């Protein structure tokens, strides 16, 4: 069972249209890239699922897009405030690939920074919906970046082992082009550890718990 600790906020910084939330790491294990943590969102009943974006010494950093009350509350945290953090959870990316290519769409770039660091500067392609969102690519300086209406899937060359995270239509397009790609999916989650059955996701034709089986799954 992963640990759950109350950790304090080390920093909150804007990165383009997103927010980087840095927490002091305490006794938490950063886990494998693609794994996620459940973060207490102040004032909300349920914690929110976030993939680890960076693991600087002594810290855990998350890249957030404020899309609703929970992510807004997390982006509004101030240094020194403390929140409960539970993880790492789920199954991350397999790192033993021969020709990695990282593919990210929007906030889906979050786990790719940590992933790139762990597999030694692989090629990265990122797609964003605006120039302001694309500023977040600064976290992955080696990445090739496109902005709407160009689609990131157009940059995928054949014969790579694709590791991808992004919006569902992007992941479906990647799955179609790259059988065997490793894809990090999302589902609405209440618990993150298999307790609620809320995160139902179709896997091999059956609804299964994404937090237990995923969030990273091999494209069928």
């Amino acid at each position, binding site marked *: 069972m992963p640990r759950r600790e109350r950790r304090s906020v080390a920093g909150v910084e804007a990165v383009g249209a997103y927010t980087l939330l840095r927490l002091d790491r305490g006794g938490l294990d950063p886990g494998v890239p693609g794994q996620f943590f459940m973060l207490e969102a102040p004032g909300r*009943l349920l914690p929110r699922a976030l993939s680890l974006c960076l693991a600087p010494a002594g810290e855990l950093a998350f890249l957030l897009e404020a899309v609703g009350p929970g992510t807004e509350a997390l982006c509004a945290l101030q240094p020194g405030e403390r929140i409960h953090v*539970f993880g790492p959870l789920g199954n991350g990316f397999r790192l033993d690939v021969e020709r990695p290519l990282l593919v990210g769409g929007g906030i889906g770039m979050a786990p790719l920074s940590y992933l790139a660091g762990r597999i030694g500067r692989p090629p990265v392609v990122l797609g964003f919906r605006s120039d302001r969102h694309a500023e977040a690519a600064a976290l992955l300086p080696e990445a090739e970046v496109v902005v709407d209406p160009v689609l990131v899937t157009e940059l995928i060359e054949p014969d790579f082992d694709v590791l991808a995270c992004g919006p569902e239509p992007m992941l479906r397009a990647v799955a179609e082009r790259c059988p065997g790609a490793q894809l990090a999916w999302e589902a*609405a989650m*209440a618990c993150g550890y298999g307790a609620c059955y*809320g995160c139902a*996701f179709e896997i091999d034709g059956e609804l299964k718990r994404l937090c237990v089986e995923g969030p990273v799954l091999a494209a069928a």
Partner: protein
Amino acid sequence: MRLLNASGCLDALTAPEVARQLDGFVTKTITPLPREGNAPPRIAETAHGMLNAIGLANPGRERFLAETLPRLHELKLPLWISVGGFCAADYAETCAALAGVEAIELNLSCPNVDEAADSAAEIVAACRRATTLPLYAKLSAAHPDLGEVARAVAAAGADGLSLINTLRGMALHPRTLEPVLARGQGGLSGPSLKPVALAAVHTCYAATKLPVVGMGGVVTGQDVVELVACGARDVALGTVLFSDPDAPSRVRAEIASVDLDEVFGTAHEASEVLA
């Protein structure tokens, strides 16, 4: 007082460390046939609560008995089996197939599937004929005369009551005004349920004096003390487990720090339940 999980709010096989903090593990409701559950999204957060429309996802009676139950026994925890169905015979057949467990909880109140055709009392009576195991009837607080339902299931042979299940609710996307849940409506749980739970436990205990497993919005030790003050003998944790997997240990420590003699007066029945 035994501290349990609420049915459907913990999987002891994926999180045994959480289950081991409890005095017993209650399974998710088992139906005769396997159920995949409802389409996602199945959960939505609300003000002070959440909605779920899981739809009784479960492996079905046969696979539960053959695969899940033996693995649950390995945890060496008292097991409560939550049983569901669509007519009295469904429930009774599952009850008849169970042995060597602490108790059976009859889920007579899931808001996420179509309601059983038979009345709560008919279902309890059929199960009473099928098993000698302790039978707890889990009721919905939505009934206009809950005390009457409690008396009817007591007369039909229930050994205890589990109170309460979720209440039907709905949440809309603020901008599109479309339902958040794919099924449209779901069951409300969490802190917003607590006053309803206290009233239901109070009413049903007064009506029957049966042992009650109280649940609904418990977050703290104080919530447990209040349910016991209303007549609960045991208490179950549900939604709180989603945000705090350490809730059972925390809640126990919080109860220990309450001065029971001060809140209940000396030698009060409730103090003995909590001691």
